[in-house]
């Protein structure tokens, strides 16, 4: 950065960086949408906690969350973990919910205490268990499990509201890189890199984890490792995440991305060949192949974004939260 001529410094000013578009046109409105849908899910749950009646609003809120679920900067770094704790490699969600139910833990009556609960027993994946797992969803008004479901939707609505509020505080940091006192983003390129890292991480997580975990080894598929398979959202999760990355790429690039759009269209087309949206049929080799092809199509979206956004604007990704094991 030290030898940049003046013209390059001007070009890197916020007006051209795409960060403003990413924040104002994408992240903030989608946070608002998530907050609204989570509130509405909770209102319906407080009126009627029964599992079946909550399925539609559950999907609506989860869809809204997927637009921003893999963004892990600012307040989302912490919040995303308690809104959607997955993968759960050691079965913590099942264990913790079972314990609450067996002990009729009074935590469900105390919303503030619930905020301190294990993240395994909070958020969408705990709620999914309560609504879709036959071992959990057979409850009625007056049962402990009804109160637990209500505690979960209430907590989710509060989390969504808080996240939106925290982002309102954080947005100026992202939007004013290099401003006095901004030690997080020292110049526009750092804010740009932060957004770019998020959208690539979404795609990597989708191919490696959302699809890679259930695919397992060729001779040993693991269908119950699919994300949100109980609510039959597995395919939807991967598609929504891919779309989110492409939308964010458009905002950041602020221009046409024909290769990226074509790659996304190809991924959608491949998704149409998948007959079980929860991937439970991938023991069948032809079904498995369709899923592997989807994985490749989504990898192609990532490569297209690297070409059309990364290489074109000279942005390289930073470290992301899935860089560990």
């Amino acid at each position, binding site marked *: 950065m030290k030898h940049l001529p003046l013209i390059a410094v001007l070009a890197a000013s916020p007006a051209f960086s795409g960060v403003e578009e990413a924040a104002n046109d994408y992240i903030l409105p989608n946070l608002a949408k998530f907050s609204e849908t989570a509130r509405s899910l909770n209102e319906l749950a407080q009126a009627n906690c029964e599992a079946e009646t909550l399925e539609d609003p559950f999907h609506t809120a989860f869809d809204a969350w997927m637009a921003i679920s893999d963004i892990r900067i600012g307040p989302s770094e912490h919040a995303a973990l308690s809104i959607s704790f997955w993968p759960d490699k*050691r079965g913590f969600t099942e264990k913790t919910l079972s314990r609450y139910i067996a002990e009729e833990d009074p935590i469900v009556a105390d919303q503030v205490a619930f905020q301190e609960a294990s993240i395994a027993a909070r958020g969408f994946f705990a709620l999914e268990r309560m609504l879709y797992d036959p071992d959990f969803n057979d409850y009625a008004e007056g049962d402990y499990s009804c109160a637990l479901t209500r505690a979960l939707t209430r907590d989710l609505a509060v989390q969504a509201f808080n996240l939106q509020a925290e982002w309102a505080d954080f947005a100026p940091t992202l939007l004013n890189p290099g401003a006095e006192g901004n030690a997080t983003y020292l110049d526009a390129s750092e804010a740009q890199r932060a957004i770019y890292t998020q959208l690539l991480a979404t795609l990597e997580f989708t191919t490696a984890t959302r699809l890679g975990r259930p695919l397992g080894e060729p001779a040993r598929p693991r269908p119950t490792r699919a994300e949100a398979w109980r609510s039959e959202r597995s395919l939807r999760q991967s598609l929504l995440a891919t779309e989110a990355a492409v939308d964010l790429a458009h905002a950041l690039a602020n221009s046409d991305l024909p290769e990226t759009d074509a790659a996304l269209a190809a991924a959608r087309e491949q998704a149409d060949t998948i007959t079980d949206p929860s991937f439970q049929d991938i023991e069948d080799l032809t079904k498995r192949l369709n899923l592997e092809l989807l994985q490749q199509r989504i990898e192609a979206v990532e*490569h297209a974004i690297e070409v059309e956004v990364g290489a074109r604007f000279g942005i390289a990704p*930073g470290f992301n939260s899935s860089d560990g094991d």
Partner: protein
Amino acid sequence: MKRTTLTATALILGAVPAFAATKGEVLDTYADIGHAAYEDSLITARALSGAIDALVANPTEVTLAAAREAWIAAREPYQQTEVYRFGNPIVDDWEGKVNAWPLDEGLIDYVDASYGGPTDENPFASVNVIANEQLTIAGQEVDASDITPELISDTLNEADGIETNVARGYHAIEFLLWGQDLNGTDPGAGERPHTDFVQGDDCTNGNCDRRVDYLQSATDLLLSDLEEMVAAWDEGGAAREAVMDDEDQGIIAILTGMGSLSYGEQAGERMRLGLMLNDPEEEHDCFSDNTHRSHYNDGLGVQNVYLGRYERVDGSLVEGPGVSDLVAESNAALDEEMTRKLDITMAAMTDLSDAAENGFAYDQMLEAGNEEGEALIMNAVNGLIDQTATIERIVSELELDMIEFEGSDSLDNPNAVFQ
């Protein structure tokens, strides 16, 4: 070790420029530190092996305590090597053999009833090979009548491709020395009695002969695994050569190791996630309650490779030009920022470690609503995240960030990825 010495002429002329550390010198130091740290891991693991032999020969509270102490001592240098993992496939592909975690310990030995049985993810979570000479794993009959290093490495470890079937490495040995920690978020480690290793009628919890076989076999494996990695970092070794092969890629590997360990692995997966799960099983060294030292030494390893300085277990120093010297030459303020942030993280790690050593166990810090524990952990997490931002700045400063693009098939020929 290879620090440039000023020549007399340079001193006389008064022309003492800042050391122009070359990338090659920085890589030499990096590989030397790696070699020394793996060698220290091997030396201390041999001491552990000796202590385990003494325990087996004469199981008493004293010999068990000595074996535990030797395990804790062996972890100190090993954790400082973790910074060599990420970004270096030779290390990362090997690492699962020695430090895989978390484990479903019921695969190995008896567990408390509260542990539960098979899970959705792992049907073999409670197989208990020490108690069972015949096993069925993924439809295959397994003869486990002799517990040998081969049985552990070829059949049990990652049985059926499941990551939590950790049958070897430090944490398997840790479980055998301490047993389960059943204290929840209260203080206290595992309390396995020394009589679990006594042969004959005084054996507790059954199968003491097989337990001893397991413990010694797992320890033998650890030694041979560490020998492999010491050789890999020796002159002409594969890991050293891989780093030296291309200087820019070598520096990228150093910075990738520092950033990936700091951020995704340590700040995220190990520390923040464990805190948010409030689960003492999410402690990295949960049986021994040594998690605070693991975290501390992971942090220290990052600082070591940046500064180009490692203090060996015998107190001697391995030092030479570090990444710090490269950065300082290009941007002194950025080097100062990195050095300062590493100090801040290590101060937070020291607070955390001191608190645990003084009786505030890591388990207790994880308890829901324990604000003091949360603050100790989150200070370290925030330090790690903050230093990662500076590592990214260093990647840009050294103009290494666009190198990945060069020579990438997909970028030279976008259509390649659609074929």
